[in-house]
């Protein structure tokens, strides 16, 4: 109990000391909390997107087969499917029709696609919620498209997909095969690519090799490659994420370095006076430890809580601009919270512990000097 009372007395003194220099310490607290907010937001956001991609794309086709001409993706003849389905291990091969449509009025790109079963009339489309948000005014309730041959096609939207699926469907425009071929100019007998269903997924590598052997101008893309693409983009160790994190970490180090390289004249005098009135070096170190702990713990709580609110309640609005780039269309989505105790522990040890320890080093140097010298200096 005596020990606890002693520590509380140190905290009382530390808080009074911090409050005497409130302008400096409050601005320090804000900068510190901001750095932690940025670091935590990046970690929470990338982790949540990565988990979302892994969960959602688990349902994507086991294998996609593209045809390449001159190193570029090209239309694939649908009779390639007959050769692929003869390879042992494949259970079905289906053509996929999809492409892009650039809408000049709003300067945005949309994905046009033909579902396997489109049960609606040819003059209709089903659209993602993002299409409705960005397309602009409709003509008599219909979307107009410029077909590949210059002809104008009017299509009525009869169904809009919900916001809940925006992360995968925001820019989708689903239509019948006839309408798609008319707009995109994909001739009969050709598809954008082929999807392959495989009986035993562990054989997918072998089947992919066999497909390249039978059809050398093709490029098989496996489901695991699709998932790996997203895992690597939102991996905190690479890409854009490391740039964002790097900025945050660098800011933190500059900030901590400034703290470690020395104390202000006022702080030195304070230490000299405290030593002069009988404080031990260990008392001064304990006081400074509490000073670091008070600031870093408060900044940690502020930064981490606001990062959580930013990512999971406000859909990471600050990152929207970076992700959107020059695009017009951006999906509306709420991420599933996926923070674990390990991530919190990492953030704590990366931010609170170094700062708290680093504040002790210059204090120890001054506190170990004769108080008379410190005060004169």
């Amino acid at each position, binding site marked *: 109990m005596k020990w606890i009372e002693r520590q*509380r*007395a140190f*905290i*009382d003194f530390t*808080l*009074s000391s911090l409050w005497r220099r409130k302008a400096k310490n409050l601005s320090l607290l804000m900068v510190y909390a901001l750095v932690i907010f940025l670091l935590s937001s990046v970690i929470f956001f990338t982790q949540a*997107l990565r988990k979302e991609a892994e*969960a*959602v*794309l688990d*349902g*994507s*086709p086991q294998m*996609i087969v593209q045809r*390449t001409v001159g*190193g*570029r*993706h090209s239309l694939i003849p649908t009779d390639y499917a007959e050769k692929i389905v003869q390879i042992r291990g494949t259970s079905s091969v289906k053509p*996929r029709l999809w492409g*892009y449509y650039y809408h000049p009025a709003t300067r945005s*790109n*949309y*994905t046009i*696609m033909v579902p*396997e079963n489109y049960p609606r009339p040819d003059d209709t489309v089903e659209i*993602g919620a*993002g299409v409705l948000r960005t397309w602009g005014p409709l003509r008599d309730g219909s979307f107009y498209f410029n077909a590949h041959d210059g002809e104008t096609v009017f299509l009525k939207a009869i169904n809009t997909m*919900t916001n*809940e*699926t925006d*992360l*995968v*469907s*925001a*820019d989708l425009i689903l239509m019948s095969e006839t309408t798609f071929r008319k707009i995109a100019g994909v001739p009969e007998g050709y598809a954008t*690519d082929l*999807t392959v269903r495989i009986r035993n997924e562990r054989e997918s590598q072998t089947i992919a090799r066999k497909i390249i052997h039978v059809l050398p101008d093709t490029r098989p*893309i496996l489901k695991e490659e*699709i998932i790996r693409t997203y895992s*690597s*983009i939102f991996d905190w160790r690479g*890409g854009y*994420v490391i*740039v964002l994190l790097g900025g945050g970490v660098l800011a933190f180090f500059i900030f901590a370095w400034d703290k470690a390289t020395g104390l202000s004249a006022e702080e030195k005098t304070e230490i000299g006076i405290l030593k002069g009135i009988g404080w031990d070096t260990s008392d001064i170190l304990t006081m400074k430890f509490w000073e670091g702990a008070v600031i870093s713990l*408060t900044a940690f*709580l*502020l930064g981490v*809580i606001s990062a*959580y609110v930013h990512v999971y309640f406000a859909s990471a609005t600050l990152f929207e601009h*970076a*992700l*959107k*780039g*020059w*695009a017009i269309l*951006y999906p509306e989505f709420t991420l*599933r*919270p*996926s*923070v674990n105790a390990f991530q919190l522990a990492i953030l704590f040890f990366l931010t609170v512990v170094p700062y708290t320890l680093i504040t002790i080093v210059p204090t120890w140097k001054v506190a170990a000097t004769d108080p008379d010298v410190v005060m004169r200096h």
Partner: protein
Amino acid sequence: MVVRKSTGFLILLFVGSLVMAGLFFIHPRLHRDDCERGLAKRRHLVRELQLTDLCLFTEARYTRHLSQADLHSPFQDYPMAFEHFPSGSLVLPPGHLAR
């Protein structure tokens, strides 16, 4: 009665920790059903339409369908072309080049 500064700080720390614990460990449980429902819908759509990519970057074809892009697509416009879409900087080089 005057409250000691340390008492005020410890109360603040306790309340902050409670809020943090509530957000990190209770909020996900409260919203689990909603989240699972949304995820099930997205999964169903991906399976039904045979989708391969997230609709995050719609500015260029190789960023809209990252997994379907040509291996060297950011530079395909002409040899030595510079990447010009901001979201292109999000994408890591292909594995075989990075090794």
